[in-house]
């Protein structure tokens, strides 16, 4: 039973002199509580795809459906996490975390308590009144995660949220996010160019090719890896087998691909 469905989605970017096809005929579906990774080189339109799913962009062609209904106008809550935390430097942490409910004008009495509890759950005690520049990169990204979760989104879109962090912080955060998503039963789509991250976190991996962005191959992550935490999964023998397979496929793809334009499709 599919929850989120992309049906022959294509998207274009226009400039004065030319147009570029960013996404070509993308179709896939996501089950409820599933964790999907979109893996691919830069310029494969991963971020565009997330913007489309979030409803910030409308697809030029094709449909995006949730429970069989068009996503536009549905009051489905979607959480979006970016490469960097983008906490507002002029707001303290608690105000940053509560920005979502404030914008939606939904602020029940106990929300602040809930926010503080959530912050503590991710190991951020006594930071409510601190400002983002007083926190380390990992702490900031955790605060950004709580900002995303506090609105109780049903689908989480993660746009390389760990790519700006050092390796140790990144691993810890991967474990944390995996645990939280499992505990709160969220559906998630992760965009990444890190093969290891994709394997250790997700149930399914969609490998994309670029120019234009299209689905190249889909891998099911073995059940043994899915049930492990990202940290333990990396030690599993099946992990390296899948890693090698994806690596080989990516390698082959790179030979046939035109030289990359710097993030041409990532930033509309």
């Amino acid at each position, binding site marked *: 039973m599919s929850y989120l469905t992309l049906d022959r989605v294509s998207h274009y970017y226009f400039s004065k002199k030319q147009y570029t096809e960013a996404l070509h005929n993308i179709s896939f579906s996501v089950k409820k509580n599933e964790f999907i990774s979109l893996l691919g080189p830069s310029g494969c339109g991963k971020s565009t795809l997330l913007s489309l799913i*979030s409803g*910030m962009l409308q697809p030029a062609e094709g449909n995006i459906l949730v429970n069989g209904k068009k996503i536009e106008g549905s009051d489905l809550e*979607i*959480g*979006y996490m*970016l490469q*960097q935390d*983008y906490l*507002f*430097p*002029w707001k303290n942490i608690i105000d940053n975390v509560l*920005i*979502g409910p404030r*914008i*939606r004008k939904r602020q029940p009495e106990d929300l602040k308590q809930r926010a503080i509890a959530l912050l503590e759950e991710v190991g951020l005690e006594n930071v409510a009144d601190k*400002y983002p520049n007083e926190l380390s990169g990992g702490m900031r990204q955790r605060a950004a995660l709580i900002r995303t979760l506090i*609105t109780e989104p049903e689908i989480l879109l993660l746009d390389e949220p760990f790519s700006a962090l050092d390796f140790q912080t990144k691993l810890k955060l991967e474990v944390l996010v995996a645990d939280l998503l499992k505990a709160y039963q969220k559906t998630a789509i992760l965009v990444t160019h890190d093969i290891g991250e994709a394997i250790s976190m997700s149930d399914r991996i969609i490998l994309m090719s670029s120019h234009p962005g299209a689905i190249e191959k889909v891998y099911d992550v073995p059940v043994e890896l899915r049930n492990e935490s990202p940290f333990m999964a990396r030690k599993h023998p099946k992990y390296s087998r899948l890693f090698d397979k994806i690596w080989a496929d990516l390698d082959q793809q790179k030979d046939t691909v035109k030289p990359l334009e710097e993030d041409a499709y990532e*930033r509309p």
Partner: protein
Amino acid sequence: MNGPKLFALYQQKLKKEAKIVLTWQLSILILFFALWETASRFYWIDPLLFSSPSRVFSSIWSRLLEGSLLSHIQITLLETILGFLIGTIAGIIIASMLWSFHRFAKVMDPYLVVFNAMPKVALGPILIVALGPGYLSIIAMGFIISVIVTTLVVFAAFNEVDQNYLKVLRSFEATKWQCFKEAVFPASLPAIISTLKVNVGLSWVGVIVGEYLVSKQGLGYLIIYGFQVFDFTLVMSSLVIIAILAAIMYKTVEKIEQMLIRK
């Protein structure tokens, strides 16, 4: 182990540095006035044209006692502050409108460029005709000279705000106004403050020129009057007062900056 000791040394060094800088600053000031006074006394410069510090300060003092200077200062200061405030606020409002309506910004672009390039004081006579030879024209001059620059600088700052902040807000389905209030405006605050600083200088230019043209009162009027009756001590006195007032206004803006922007 040596932490506290080294820190104390570092603090001493900082204090010493601050002292040296202050000493130099004061020396330059004193040297300037001393040189001016001497040059005037020994007729290296014509004391009739360039006056001297002693005459300037005694003139300021006597006019202060007599009370006439204070009302001149009040009027000019009021005009400048009003011109400054109206120009700055209007500039920010126009910039916000340009940001909200993309097409409006595109349509207005050539007009803003022309108006910005134009020497605003050239509009003086027209202002006087339109608003009458009084406060209104002078305040309008202070306003008109700062409003376009403010608009352009603030609008540019609005457009430079990192799009990802807006993406965060849009993921919560923020409206355009909410995006402006939560991200665009606060992120542009440093740029807005720096235009405030520029505008302090600009509105003084506008008001003094305005007073040259029309007024019967104010520091600009004193300068022109002094010039006409060949009383250059009066001209120099007014300049000294303007310098002091403009510096105070600038420092006030700096204080506001420190209050508004967390470092």
